[in-house]
């Protein structure tokens, strides 16, 4: 143990007014750091009372405060001068408590850990002690090193170029002709057949009359003929037949025309016997 520190009366210790003002009992060096005696209190230990709340916010917990105390005095973490650090740490904690600042439990827990390490060091070593097993000082050093690493990582992360601060998204408007594409749902042929069947069954049950089922080719031809005709001009009948379809095609067209006449969708006229037949959209009733 290289450090030698007089135990302080924690309850009566006045808050340190300024860095150079030596407390009453200060004849001994504060600490020996790597063999050198430290007599003066570090100046940064002066804490203006109104700054205490700020300090609580400045430090991210007891590890951060400890790191600050160690680094400020250029101590080496690996040789953690436990007595000095404990003393300074206690001064912070006591002052905060004296000012009745709400102190996070973690600070008090650390105080207890430091006190325990210090008391262990004051006790004579027993030869049969297996120090390696649970040396609280080694554990604290490990935690301090680990925390320091995380602190550094956080600082590095903060300097990493980031959106909104260092880099900005380059965005381009789409030209006006860009329109969202709608993907239409898939329909299967089976769905259509079943839908038709369902509709017809409902109609039959409802209306009690059967609905005739014509050959689809006839109905398709009816649609085709309708789209070829108009209401104002007559179209020669033969234009509705196509030669290359053969006899079957002629039959389908003929059936379609008869059906269209029956449904009063088209009008057929013939000027005289054997004259050409003309058709147009419309019904006889109107003419």
């Amino acid at each position, binding site marked *: 143990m290289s450090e030698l520190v007089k135990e302080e009366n924690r309850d009566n210790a006045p808050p340190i007014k300024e860095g150079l003002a030596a407390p009453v009992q200060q004849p001994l060096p504060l600490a020996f750091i790597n063999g050198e005696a430290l007599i003066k209190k570090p100046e940064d230990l002066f804490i203006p009372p109104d700054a205490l709340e700020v300090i609580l916010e400045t430090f991210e917990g007891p590890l951060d405060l400890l790191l600050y105390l160690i680094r400020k005095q250029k101590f080496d973490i690996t040789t953690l001068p436990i007595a000095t650090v404990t003393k300074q740490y206690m001064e912070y904690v006591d002052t905060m408590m004296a000012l009745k600042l709400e102190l996070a439990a973690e600070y008090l827990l650390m105080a207890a850990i430091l006190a325990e390490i210090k008391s262990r060091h004051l006790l004579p070593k027993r030869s049969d002690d297996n120090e390696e097993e649970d040396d609280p000082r080694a554990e604290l050093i490990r935690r301090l090193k680990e925390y320091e690493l995380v602190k550094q990582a956080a600082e590095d992360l903060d300097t990493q170029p980031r959106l909104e601060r260092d880099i900005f998204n380059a965005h381009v408007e789409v030209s006006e002709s860009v329109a969202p594409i709608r993907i239409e749902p898939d329909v299967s042929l*089976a769905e259509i057949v079943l839908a038709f069947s369902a509709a017809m069954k409902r109609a039959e049950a409802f209306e009690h009359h059967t609905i005739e089922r014509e050959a689809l080719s006839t109905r*398709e031809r009816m649609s085709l003929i309708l789209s070829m005709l108009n209401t104002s001009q007559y179209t020669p009948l033969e234009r509705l037949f196509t030669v290359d379809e053969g006899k079957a095609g002629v039959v389908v067209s003929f059936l379609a025309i008869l059906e269209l006449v029956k449904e009063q969708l088209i009008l057929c006229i013939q000027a005289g016997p054997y004259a050409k037949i003309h058709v147009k959209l419309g019904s006889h009733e109107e003419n």
Partner: protein
Amino acid sequence: MKRINTAQLKQLVEAAIFVAEKPISKQQLKETVLNEFTVADSTLSKVIKELKLDYQPRGIQLVEVASGYRFQSLDALSPWLSKLWQENAPKYSRAMLETLALIAYRQPITRGEIEQVRGVAVSSNIIKTLTERDWIKVVGHKEVPGRPALYATTKGFLDYFSMASLSDLPNVDTFESMAESIASDSPLKVLNEAPSE
């Protein structure tokens, strides 16, 4: 006021137009990103002109709109860029399927006739959707009071279902007996339970 060389000015103006959320005018550029530099109006105009030329062969273009300058995609690329905003249309309702089926099997047919069979009104939306999909079209008007439109299926409809003509539409009775025979293994009838509108 600092000086800025033309190369740096060009980079800065370019980046500013790209990252600004709205079109940005020369005046706005001078009041924001350029506010600590001495930049002559003519220099700024020259730089913008150069940028316009730089992007001419590219997929995006620097254009001037009412409120300033902005980059926008090349008009000719729109058909493909549109695909970045694809959305799935909802599945067709039972009313939609029945309407389509009636037009397919009973064409040419009026809306009134479809309503007679279905026992309910056919919404204009259904007709509109089927027309927009190019599955149905108006082939004429029935010469009765009101001259209602006669609907038929299109070539697009035949193409979608890989049919050469409407006579390829399955015969309902045959289809049903086939469906029944396999109904025990595969629940085809579930299709009838499609949600209604």
